[in-house]
């Protein structure tokens, strides 16, 4: 069970309170062609390493936030509020 730090609740809560909503910082294209729609709808970083993703605190505050997580160890490096730019990662 992962422990996830909700940046709104400012509490570390169990994974079962959350759902993961996929890769973060996806920009919906304007006046897109087929290739841009493909990129937005389907192509994903699928990073082996630090992955930026959205989480939804469905059984808590009910808000979306972003997280940086290492997909090899599943360790959360940090979480931050939705709308903020990709942050610098803290040094290990």
């Amino acid at each position, binding site marked *: 069970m992962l422990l996830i730090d909700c940046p709104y609740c400012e509490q570390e809560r169990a994974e079962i309170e959350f759902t993961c909503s996929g890769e973060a910082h996806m920009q919906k294209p304007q006046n897109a062609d087929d290739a841009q729609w*493909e990129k937005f709808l*389907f192509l*994903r970083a*699928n*990073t*082996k390493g630090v992955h930026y*993703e959205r989480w939804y605190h469905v059984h808590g505050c009910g808000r979306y936030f972003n997280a940086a997580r290492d*997909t*090899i160890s599943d360790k959360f490096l940090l979480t931050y509020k939705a709308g903020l730019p990709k942050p610098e990662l803290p040094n290990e």
Partner: protein
Amino acid sequence: MTRFSFPSLVRHAFGGDKGWDQQWAKPEPKASYDVIIIGAGGHGLAAAYYLAKEHNITNVAVLEKGWLGGGNTARNTTVIRSNYLYDESANLYNHALCLWEGLSQELNYNLMFSQRGVMMLAHSEHEVQLYKRHVHANRLNGVDNEWLNVEQAKDFCPPLNISPDVRYPVMGAALQRRGGTARHDGVAWGYARGASTRGVHIIENCEVLGINRHADGSVSGVETSRGTIGASKIAISAAAHSSQLMNMAGLDVPLECFTLQALVSEPVAPVFPCVIASNTVHAYISQSDKGELVIGAGTEQYVSYAQRGPLHTVEHTLAAICEMFPMFTRMKMLRNWGGCVDVTPDRSPILGKTPIQGLYLNAGWGTGGFKATPGAGHLLAHTIAKDAPHEINAPFSLSRFQTGRLIDEAAAAAVAH
């Protein structure tokens, strides 16, 4: 290579079983090959076997980062079926099922292929309608599938709890009698033996670090942990690491990797006659010939390469198993593991050419790649040899995510592949 037969078993038994050959060679990599296949799992080895057998292309190397059949081939729950909803999927998986049916004899290798039947339970009126639609669609496509009412389902699988007093009572089931299980390791070993006998090089402990290209963009070979190896045709068949390999060639792919867990119980006498899958309560179960119950859970929701998952998923699955089969409530579980499954947005695989000349992709089989092993290998070999997809795998192109011609099995069966 010694053929396995009753006389050869007797002869070797009298020799103390000391005279068996190596089942496949372990050659050093050559400077170049006609075809390189990345990934020595069931799919990659099958592709190499069919390239040699059906297309007479034997100057082939199968490169493997770890050891042969050590990835998802060794981690799946060995279920085989072809009762998919859409025409394209039914054709694809039934092609594989037809190859499964003669495969032990063809490879001269006991795959322990057992068509014990796969029964998928319906727990709601909606699911009853959905599975009946599946049955009709399958029959139109020549795939066997039949609807069973509750009593018929109980007759087919006596341990099943059909009490109306449970949270999700069983309301009926769809049964594919030609479905079943096979020995997962045996499939990789059988194909490796068949390919190696025909001259294919299987090179383990050889991680691909880069994909080299000519000035015109076509592939020229790979950089590996054991040096540069040339090839004019390269096929990526690396399951969860297909994204990384495609990135090396400068391409993004519509894949995400999730953890999928499975577990086995202590071995017991034969008690469970078939494979049962339930989408509503998220569980599937069969009994191996060794006597272990083999149980699969659903995928996790976040991208992960950890190859391990959380306990609450396993608890959820076992709760479902115990409610469907109360006789298993006191069974002890022996082992639990996770695999890393590569999933596409429409839950159908990608099998075909890529925008790069000479580069082919076989990926995105998600939670259901094992059942397709012979078919995927057969079609990938065809695609490589002809430089064009077979009519069966043509719809499963990488370009469908741009054209929009998805094969949306996600809507049809998002879990329990």
